[in-house]
């Protein structure tokens, strides 16, 4: 019988229960889906790493004889080591506007236990001494390649045709980025090709019998830093550039960060949602028990035990918990597969699906039942305390009081009678007001944060490409000797308006025991194509005496303007020596982490002659810049001196396009904020309407319209929401700062301030969701049957 009562009670108040249920379901979808996805990714990653023997250490050097690699495997702590040749080449594809690059990585076919082995997905084994290659699957698919197709690359100054005989994937390139300033892989324009070691030697005569890259795995208990220390002296003579561990490997770093983020989200997000649902249910049950005092009294008088009565009220909570838990769990499992697929669009790891997970379904159900058991029990425990006789008496009357707000004289003067009721209602149920306040605050903060995040990423890209790097194209040189001839040529072209040399030099900067590997950028004093800007957006003229550092770099090195740094570089004339150089200025930088210097000062510092790694170019003819850039590209398609021509517009376009896919995730967060705000106002309005139906009906009888009556409730809610939204500002600011320091990496730095548009947007969006939620409750006031409500005694 009591089951029937429960079902009817729930049905007669379905709005609030549905709101509660929706929140539980969303929470549990995220829980199961994200848990499964992060498990799948972890599993794929681990299997992939194990099966392909993924390296734990990476070495870049100028050149060393291949037969010396074998000797290095005897270094204590190293298990296996492979020597490779890694070179980047340009693909000759005249039909394509943009430049396409391939990173060629050699595979030693004679080595049976290769480190960073490639998993062949399709195609056949590589053959020695033939111009054949495997390409990575993303590049293969993005460019719609076919097996046996030949691609033409410019290698060693000659156009060569390489036959694609296979397609595979490597743990080293799960998130392949060509340069440091890129945020996303771009498989259409950048891919990896794996070739036999001999073939590499055939393509590049200068690497005959030599390697320029080492990858190694460690003995189980070896410590990377020790191994690094042992390796360094061995490699010094071969022009060692850098040794880093797996933790600093870009693809690995991005992949593990993503998995960690998913794991964090899969717990924190559902907990937030379940707590909100729990509080709503707690409030609803508490109110219902208060309202049903009489019924409880009768049940007790009839001889129902306390246990039975509490169980009856708990059954409301458990029903919601069970329905929400199961529905959310199933939907979560359903969405796990598409979500994993989405993640695999970004990360190139083999798919290992964990389709149906009973474990997460059950733990999700258990989680939601536990939350509701707790909130339900607290909501209805007062039913226990009621004595039957007491229960049938009406509750102690509401003791109306004036509250603190009204003691402020002028404020009280301003209020209408409805306003007074609303203000007093705020303190009538303090717990509920506090919950509403916190909910709106959170909702508003989440929206502000998300919006701001979106804004900031946009701004970051805009800043980098519209303010800092304002050139139309970058012409990358293939070697140091190319500088003079290319510069002369470029200046001779009619489409070229301005040419500036730029040098990017890998350096190690150290200050006491802090040490950072960065790229030092040398630009001319009068450069107008690459602007170094200070925090106020003013141009900083590079100095030939000292370095300009990005804020993050300065922080990491723990230096300020005037400090002296130690500089080492493979570009130094005497490679084993180091130079001392002072810090001239510190500037904000959002994409990448660099140091800057005036070009001739840099040349002098390194003891080099004229230095440049690329030229920045502005083309004539503002209306048709694209035409100018593609003309330039055509000129250098086959050039030995030029490694590539990059148009700026394409890079902005790509960044913007990829931002859009990320934007989807951000909209989901906005939606989350809206749902929180909406459901809180929605359920609290419903509760208030049913709790105060008698008061509301009396006002209707007096001749007030539904709208006038409802304004008492809305005034109360807006009043609270206004202050909640004000309080959301510092909260969002705090969250932004936390998030910025959490998510910033050496590749991109997120600013810690909220954008002002986002605050406005958050206020508007939150208000809108409050307003819409109120429309539903208004309908409930309209439908209030005056005759029925007033018939019974309170």
């Amino acid at each position, binding site marked *: 019988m009591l089951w029937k009562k429960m079902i009817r009670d729930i049905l007669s108040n379905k709005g609030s229960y549905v709101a509660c249920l929706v929140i539980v379901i969303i929470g549990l979808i995220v829980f199961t889906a994200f848990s499964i996805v992060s498990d799948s990714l972890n599993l794929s990653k681990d299997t992939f790493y194990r099966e392909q023997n993924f390296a734990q250490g990476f070495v870049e050097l100028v050149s060393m004889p291949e037969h010396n690699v074998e000797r290095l495997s005897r270094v204590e702590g190293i298990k296996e080591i492979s020597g490779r040749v890694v070179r980047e080449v340009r693909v000759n594809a005249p039909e394509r506007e943009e430049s396409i690059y391939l990173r060629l990585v050699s595979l030693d076919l004679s080595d049976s236990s290769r480190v960073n082995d490639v998993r062949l997905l399709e195609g056949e084994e590589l053959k020695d001494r033939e111009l054949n290659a495997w390409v990575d699957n993303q590049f293969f698919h993005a460019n719609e390649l076919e097996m046996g197709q030949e691609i033409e690359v410019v290698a060693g100054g000659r156009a060569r045709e390489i036959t694609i005989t296979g397609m595979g994937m490597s743990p080293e390139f799960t998130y392949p980025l060509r340069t440091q300033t890129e945020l996303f892989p771009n498989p259409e324009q950048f891919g990896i090709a794996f070739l036999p070691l001999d073939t590499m030697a055939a393509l590049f005569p200068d690497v005959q019998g030599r390697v320029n890259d080492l990858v190694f795995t460690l003995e189980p208990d070896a410590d990377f830093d020790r191994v690094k220390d042992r390796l360094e002296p061995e490699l010094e003579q071969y022009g060692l550039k850098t040794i880093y561990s797996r933790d600093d490997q870009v693809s690995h770093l991005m992949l593990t960060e993503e998995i960690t983020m998913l794991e964090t989200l899969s717990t924190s997000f559902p907990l937030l949602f379940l707590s909100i649902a729990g509080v709503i249910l707690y409030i609803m049950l508490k109110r219902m028990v208060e309202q049903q005092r009489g019924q409880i009294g009768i049940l007790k008088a009839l001889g129902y035990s306390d246990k039975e009565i509490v169980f009856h009220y708990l059954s409301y909570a458990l029903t919601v918990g069970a329905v929400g838990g199961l529905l959310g769990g199933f939907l979560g499992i359903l969405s796990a597969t598409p979500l994993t697929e989405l993640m695999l669009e970004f990360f190139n790891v083999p798919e290992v699906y964990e389709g149906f997970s009973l474990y997460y379904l059950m733990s999700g159900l258990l989680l939601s039942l536990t939350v509701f058991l707790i909130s339900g029990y607290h909501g209805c425990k007062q039913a226990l305390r009621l004595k039957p006789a007491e229960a049938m008496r009406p509750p102690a009357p509401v003791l109306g009081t004036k509250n603190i707000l009204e003691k402020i004289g002028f404020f009280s003067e301003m209020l209408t009678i409805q306003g007074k009721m609303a203000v*007093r209602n705020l303190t009538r149920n303090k717990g509920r007001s506090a919950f509403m306040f916190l909910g709106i605050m959170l909702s508003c903060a989440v929206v502000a944060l998300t919006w701001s995040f979106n804004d900031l990423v946009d701004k970051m890209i805009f800043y980098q490409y519209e303010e800092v790097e304002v050139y139309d194209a970058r012409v990358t040189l293939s070697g140091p000797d190319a500088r003079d001839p290319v510069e002369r040529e470029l200046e001779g072209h009619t489409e070229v308006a301005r040419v500036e040399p730029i040098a990017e030099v890998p350096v190690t900067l150290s200050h006491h025991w802090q040490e950072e590997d960065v790229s030092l950028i040398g630009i001319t004093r009068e450069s107008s194509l690459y602007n170094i800007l200070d925090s106020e957006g003013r141009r900083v003229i590079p100095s030939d005496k000292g370095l300009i550092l990005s804020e993050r770099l300065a922080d990491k090195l723990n230096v300020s303007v005037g400090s002296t740094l130690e500089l080492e570089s493979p570009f130094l004339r005497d490679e084993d020596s180091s130079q001392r150089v002072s810090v001239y200025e510190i500037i904000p930088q959002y994409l990448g982490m660099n140091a800057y210097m005036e070009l001739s000062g840099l040349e002098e510092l390194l003891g080099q002659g004229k230095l440049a790694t690329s030229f920045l170019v502005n083309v004539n003819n503002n209306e048709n810049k694209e035409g100018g850039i593609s003309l330039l590209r055509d000129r250098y398609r086959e050039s030995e001196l030029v490694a590539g021509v990059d148009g700026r517009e394409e890079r902005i376009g790509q960044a913007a396009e990829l931002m859009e896919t990320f934007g989807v995730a951000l909209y989901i967060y906005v939606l989350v904020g809206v749902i929180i705000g909406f459901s809180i106002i929605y359920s609290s309005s419903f509760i208030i309407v049913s709790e105060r139906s008698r008061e509301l009906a*009396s006002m209707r009888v007096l*001749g007030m319209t539904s709208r006038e009556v409802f304004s008492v409730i809305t005034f109360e809610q807006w009043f609270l929401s206004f202050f909640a939204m004000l309080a959301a500002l510092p909260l969002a600011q705090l969250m932004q700062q936390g998030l910025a320091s959490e998510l910033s990496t050496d590749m991109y730095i997120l600013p810690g301030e909220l954008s002002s548009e986002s605050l406005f947007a958050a206020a508007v969006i939150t208000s809108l969701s409050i307003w819409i939620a109120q429309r539903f409750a208004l309908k409930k006031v309209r439908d209030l049957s005056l005759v029925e409500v007033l018939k019974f005694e309170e």
Partner: protein
Amino acid sequence: MSTELIAAKNLKKRYQMGEVTVYALKGVDFTLYDGELVVMLGPSGSGKSTLLNIIGGMDQATEGELYFGDKGLHEVGDRELTLYRRNEVGFIFQFYNLMPNLTAFENINLSVQIAQDPLEIDGLLEQVGLGDRRDHFPSQLSGGEQQRVAIARALAKNPRMLLCDEPTGALDLPTGIQVLKLLRDFCENYHKTVVIITHNTAIAEMADRVVYLKDGMVDRIEKNAHPLPPEKVTW
């Protein structure tokens, strides 16, 4: 006889409860005049409250016509009904239905705010004998005092008629008489119409007319040539 205020013609009220149809009113013809005091009597379930609610614009009949002057209340929408309640009708219930978090003064003010030609609040409070309880909340007042605030709240709008559903139902004799006296005074001093539903036949003695309802129909209507003053009524 004075002018007609309300005219009901063949009013029917039907409740559909699944298979069963309940007729609360089965065709009521009834006229209410300006300035009279009417008492409605009848057994429980005879349709008294239903009729009063329809007259007061709280509810609408399923069939039949209801005129306020020449306005057909049976054919207007929710907005017009609200306006009618706001400007012409004052309701008083057995349970006082005051706003628990407004003081006596503020409760009355609630209706003054929406009225076109309201009466003065402090004067009304004096009249109902609660001048010194102005700033008290309902929980600080007795039942009788709360009912007097409710009456003052209904009167404050200065309505054409006052409709009372068992106004003394929860009160003891002396308190009940106080309330009835207020209603009688209002009727006489301001020349307003008052309808009182009661189970107490003694109260009928103070009415100008007594309407007997039975089984959803008007059974009979009696006229009192000499209504008793409320003080003389005993039960």
